[in-house]
């Protein structure tokens, strides 16, 4: 019974990375190296599916809790999951193998090190989603900077150095204030254990400052307007697999952090700062959607659309409505899949034409039809067409928002329209139209591995679009419990 399944999830990728580290990398064994990495991440994926099967959906208590003394009398290594975190863990273990499969087209040099970075990154990301101690959380949250910095910096595009530095310093700057807050919580409450903090609550006179300190970190990571500027740079310069990890999982850490820590630990302050979040979210939705409309670089366009989508997520979280919160989590999962798929789509044409500019393309529907079909599915999912997972999330968020604040919901709904505009326009300019650039004729359609990756992503997007119940059932109890505690806490103050 007491098999430490979460710790295994965290450790397994790192062990795989250790194997890779001791294997000599050269041209011949590149394939072997890749299979080792793929095998590790697939084992991890099945382990997480097994975890989902074992998971008890009827309770909001933390399950699979492991509690070990780590620093004597100070910090315990404590991990555990509830309905909110399990989906993110599965998302992580699902995306990572796809990233690893996708590398054979884009990463030419130092494949071994690249895979090590990805696997280590996976360890840290899973760690973030299941840690139940603030210091452990911070450790994983920050540690992820190291592999990501290297992924952008070593394998990135032409302006990679600038982007890598910007990414690292922005995130670090946001996070150090969170460290101050975490240590302060230790001295205020005597513990950094999340479950204990949930039970005893934090004195409301400290909550505002603590909330702001956590906010500074999560806002940068989300990213919220106006600290979103690192994201387009990082996305554009990162290699495809890096962009996928960044968009699909790294951004979700912040959304998860808002739900788990900002709402859970500081309900009083969350109530006070909800207007701030609403304002920033609405600006993000409208403003970055307009910016996305004007982009000429495909990756940049998707990056800005990520900011807008994350604006919906933060909006949904702070509605503190069952629908809003469920919608946010679904939106995060869906965006994880869709953004990953879109970046992979851009990667596919980039590998062939070495250009990310929209102008380069046009009229490729007749040359690479399979690709165009997949690209269409993901485009429609990104703009939230009913029947795709993007719709469920956005719809629930807007429903929650209408209950809470009519004006905000109306403005946010406008964002949906602009979102449809830039995504459809992008699709039109890339896929349809006249074939002007004659180089495009040499493009070959999707090869087997690309076909496999994109289908893997398309299936859950459509499945959860029509039938989101498995996801909703998993998170429902945890969310309603969270909202109940939240309401009790804010009533009392």
């Amino acid at each position, binding site marked *: 019974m007491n098999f430490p399944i979460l710790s295994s999830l965290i450790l397994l990728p790192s062990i795989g990375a250790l194997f890779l580290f001791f294997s000599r990398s050269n041209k011949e064994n590149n394939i072997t190296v890749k299979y080792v990495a793929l095998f590790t991440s697939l084992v991890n994926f099945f382990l997480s599916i097994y975890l989902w099967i074992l998971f008890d959906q009827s309770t909001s208590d933390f399950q699979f809790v492991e509690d070990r*003394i*780590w*620093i*004597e009398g*100070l910090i315990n290594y404590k991990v555990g999951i509830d309905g909110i975190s399990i989906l993110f863990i599965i998302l992580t273990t699902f995306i990572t193998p796809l990233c690893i499969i996708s590398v054979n087209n884009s990463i030419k040099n130092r494949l071994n090190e690249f895979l090590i970075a990805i696997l280590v990154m996976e360890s840290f990301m899973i760690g973030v989603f299941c840690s139940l101690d603030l*210091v452990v959380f*911070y*450790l*994983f949250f*920050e*540690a992820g*900077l*190291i592999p990501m*910095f*290297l992924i952008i*910096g*070593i394998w990135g595009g032409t302006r*990679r*150095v600038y982007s*890598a*530095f910007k990414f*690292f*310093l922005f995130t*670090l*700057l946001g996070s*150090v*204030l969170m*460290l*101050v807050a975490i*240590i*302060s919580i*230790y*001295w205020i409450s005597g513990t950094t254990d999340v479950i204990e903090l949930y039970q005893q609550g934090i004195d409301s006179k400290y909550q505002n400052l603590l909330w702001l300190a956590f906010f500074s970190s999560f806002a940068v990571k989300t990213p919220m307007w106006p600290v979103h500027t690192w994201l387009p740079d990082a996305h554009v310069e990162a290699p495809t697999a890096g962009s996928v990890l960044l968009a699909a999982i790294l951004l979700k850490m912040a959304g998860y952090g808002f739900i788990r820590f900002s709402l859970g630990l500081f309900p009083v302050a969350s109530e006070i700062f909800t207007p701030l979040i609403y304002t920033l979210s609405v600006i993000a939705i409208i403003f970055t959607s307009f910016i996305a409309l004007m982009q000429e670089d495909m990756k940049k366009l998707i990056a800005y659309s990520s900011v807008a989508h994350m604006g919906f997520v933060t909006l949904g979280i702070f509605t503190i409505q069952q629908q809003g919160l469920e919608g946010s989590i679904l939106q995060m999962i869906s965006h994880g899949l869709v953004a990953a798929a879109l970046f992979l789509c851009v990667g596919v044409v980039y590998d062939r034409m070495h250009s990310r500019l929209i102008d380069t393309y046009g009229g490729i529907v007749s040359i690479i039809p399979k690709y165009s079909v997949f690209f269409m599915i993901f485009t429609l999912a990104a703009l939230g067409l009913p029947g795709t997972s993007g719709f469920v999330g956005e719809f629930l968020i807007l429903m929650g928002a209408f209950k809470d604040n009519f004006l905000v919901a109306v403005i946010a709904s406008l964002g949906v329209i602009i979102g449809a505009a830039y995504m459809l326009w992008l699709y039109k300019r890339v896929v349809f139209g006249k074939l002007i650039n004659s180089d495009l004729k040499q493009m070959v359609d999707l090869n087997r591995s690309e076909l496999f990756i994109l289908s893997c992503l398309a299936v859950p997007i459509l499945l959860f679009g029509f039938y989101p119940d498995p996801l909703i059932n998993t998170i429902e109890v945890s969310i309603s419990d969270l909202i109940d505690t939240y309401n009790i806490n804010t009533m009392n103050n």
Partner: protein
Amino acid sequence: MINLELVFPEIFLSLSIMFLLILGVFKKNSSVLIHNLSLIVLLVTAVITINETLGIEETFLFNGSIVIDYLSSFMKIMTLIAAFLVLVISSNYLKAFKIFKIEYPILILSSVLGMMVMISSNDLIVFYMGLELQSLALYVLATFNRDQLKSSEAGLKYFVLSALSSGLLLYGCSLIYGFTGATNFILIADQLGSNEYALTFGIVFILVGLAFKISAVPFHMWAPDVYEGSPTSVTLFFTMVPKIAALSVFIRFLYVPFLNLIEQWQMILVFLSIASMLFGAIAAIGQTNLKRLIAYSSISHVGYALAGLATSSNDGIQSSVIYITIYIIMNLGLFSCLLMMRRNNEYYEDINDLSGLSKNHPLLSISLLVILFSLAGIPPLAGFFAKFYIFKSVLEQSMYFLAIVGLLSTVVAAFYYLRIIKIMYFDKEKEKFDTDHSMWLKFSLTASTLLILIYFIFPSQLIEVVSRINII
């Protein structure tokens, strides 16, 4: 009745120094022999220290002018081990510069002796004697490569400025003696009472002197020049060993006699700490010489160690000791890398010489990567925990300003560490460096990297060791 065995390490060390000197004079070409013998002497002294003094309760010797307690034993052992490692990894460097002479190990031994006296001192005069013994040896060491203009300049600069600070320190000592009539720390503590303001002057002067020795801002001016000019092996010694001694003197001087005047000196310490953290981080950004860069980074690390001292709690002192321990491990690794930057018997120390290191020397560059991220304080490496303990004790005293400035300056500092990583990993490769390094050099690099890397698995051990330090 005096327990002479408690000072046996010092006695053994001084006798060995004299013996080695005589041996060096009478035996021709004995530099290798003396080098090896000094290594053995350092190890034996460390063993004696562990055996004789480690488990001892606080004991005073020679009318209370020397104290043996856990803090002093711990710091002495650390000094001895650090000096041993410095000596053992720098032999190839010295040979390459043709300064592998008998004086070098003997000077190191004498400065270590001075530091041991400093660490144990419980009396202003004994403390000053120890300080001068170590400083005089260090002046000579700084100029050791005397054919090089820069080295002589470094030594001269160090000598002049250090003499000035010693003068200030001595002036402070005489003020304190004048107002309390005592030089013994414990007697001073009894006499504090009425002379608070006058004594504050004395404390300030002594703090200035000590801040100079530990190169805290605004008394740091000498450090970059001296670190750059001295031979690399000596710079390595400068950045590690004297800091241990100076820190323990800081602890004892502030917390034994002047604990009751805490309002007076706490602000000075907070200022020193903030100024060092910030200035060290900002000034390092523009540096292109690695040794200069390390000088500034060591200034900012000293700032963090001082932040722990400013808290006036046992927790804070312990976190400073932890910080300096981890800092020394990181520094050892950093300098091992620096000593490996050798091509055709020529050593390189410009930051651009690291360009593209990751392609030619993947293992060396990954070690350097780990060390640099750790210096920047990124989890889960040891450097993060060092900072974590410091800020934990700082925030316990609700010193929010200090904590926030400190953490913000880690972000600034992260920039220049990242710059080195960028040059190593993102830039075009240059010629390869030589790979025939001595076994000890490889060992110290591997050991320090591994310690930094896996520290997070067993963080409690170091805390346990340090938690026996109880000064207040």
